[in-house]
């Protein structure tokens, strides 16, 4: 079965949970989703990226330049990812649809991982 990576994009200006209770219940939503996919034997990885905006490296006119993120062209960051197995895009998307990232204002990019 092919693997799909779910890239969890988030808007830097998204509203954030106001209280510890809200934050913890959001965390629990993510956990519950991952626990469910894991119990089905479909979760093959997942990590959170650090909260800093990271770096972007580009080459311009033969010179390499490193700049701070976020990228000039978007106010979005990838905050984390999951890798799941599914038989096709349709199934991968159906599994991703339940991911609480959407409920909390994020966007999920689903990409199939090339089988090597």
């Amino acid at each position, binding site marked *: 079965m092919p693997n799909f990576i779910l890239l969890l994009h988030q808007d830097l200006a998204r509203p954030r949970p106001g209280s*510890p*209770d809200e*934050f*913890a219940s959001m*965390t*629990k939503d*993510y*956990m519950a989703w*991952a*626990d469910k996919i*894991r119990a089905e034997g479909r*979760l093959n990885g*997942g*990590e*959170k990226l650090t*909260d800093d905006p990271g770096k972007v490296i580009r080459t311009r006119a033969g010179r390499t330049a490193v700049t701070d993120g976020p990228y000039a062209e978007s106010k979005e960051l990838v905050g*984390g990812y999951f890798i799941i197995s599914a038989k096709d895009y349709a199934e991968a998307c159906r599994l991703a649809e339940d991911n609480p990232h959407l409920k909390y204002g994020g966007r999920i990019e689903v990409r199939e991982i090339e089988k090597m």
Partner: protein
Amino acid sequence: MADADVLVSDLFRREAGKISAWLARLLGPARLDLIEDAVQDAFGAALARWPLDGVPVKPAAWLAIAARNKALDRLKSEARLGPLDESAAWRLGFSDPEATGRLDDTLALMFVACHPTLEHDEQTMLTLKTVCGFGVKDLARAYLSTPEAVTQRLVRAKRKIRELALAFEIPEGAELAARLPALVQAIYLLFNGGYTSGEGKDLVARELCREALRLATLLTEHAATATGECHALAALICFHHARAEARTGDAGALILLAEQDRGRWDGALIARGFVHLRQAMSASALTALHLEAAIASVHAAAAAFEATDWAMLARYYRMLEELKPTPIVQLNAAIALAQAEGPDAGLARLEVLAGARKLAHYAPYHAARGDLLLKLCRRREAAAALAAALDCPLNDAERAFLAGRLRTCAENGTSDRRH
């Protein structure tokens, strides 16, 4: 219902340490308290739920998930006093509860629990509590203390760790070299504690020995910690622990090396000991532990007490004396010498030690003197020495044994029993 109870208590010891190490990786060693509580909560939940719902398909993962959820709850409660540690919450959120039991995590937790700034007892207690999943009651029994006193010491130890703000990792380079000896020492003490408190009859004492063996073996399984000294430690524990069954009689009485049924020694464990010893000897530095392991190997290799290679033993003891000139080592060296070269030679060495304060109230010293004097047919002096031994702190088995020896003196003491 009873089945689930037994399963939980069995699982607890096995899984509690793994889950604690996994959570410590996620939340940091400064939160050992929170982690312990969360693990405790999870096992409480298992005790409440499993008898009703049945045992889950993956009990270990179930426990890890429950502990992780409880940890999040406790993180939230912590936030009543300050802001929520969002990064810690996220780490829990993305954690993999099926990834417990990683060697790196367990070793990192051992390095935390055995930090050199902690006292020896604190190191071993905290290791047993967090890495091995021992309860406070078991610890109190092992340390001849009360649960309250144990709890207090653990609280102090954990406070020290918080203040140190340690990273959760296996140290590298000079830091590793500086911190590994405390781990080796703690495991050594753990084993000694279990061994000398009569591992044959006492379940907790036997568990201490088993855990010491497990932890020493873990050290030898990681590239960073598989040093010659760690292999020597593992070898030493294998050789001694292999004799556990043969060391105690039916009534729990201690059986001396000379009288043990060597058929009851654990041959597989002895073989493991020799594998570790070979690894230890291939390292460049020779430590006291190497020699202690080598000494234990000489006994382990002898098919019968009479077949012991005493000359080899005396040589190892002489080398050990140079590295570790403690009165106890010197005493054992003298005993080995007596076997290798005769009672006169051994007795001469014992007389030199007569002034050592540590030996004045140490029964084995007086007992060994009595024994050699008896062999030399100096019966009155032998009786005095044995009487001095009986004046020392002894357990019941030892007392009974020495009293018997003293009686032999009065009759015609030529029997050949010795430690």
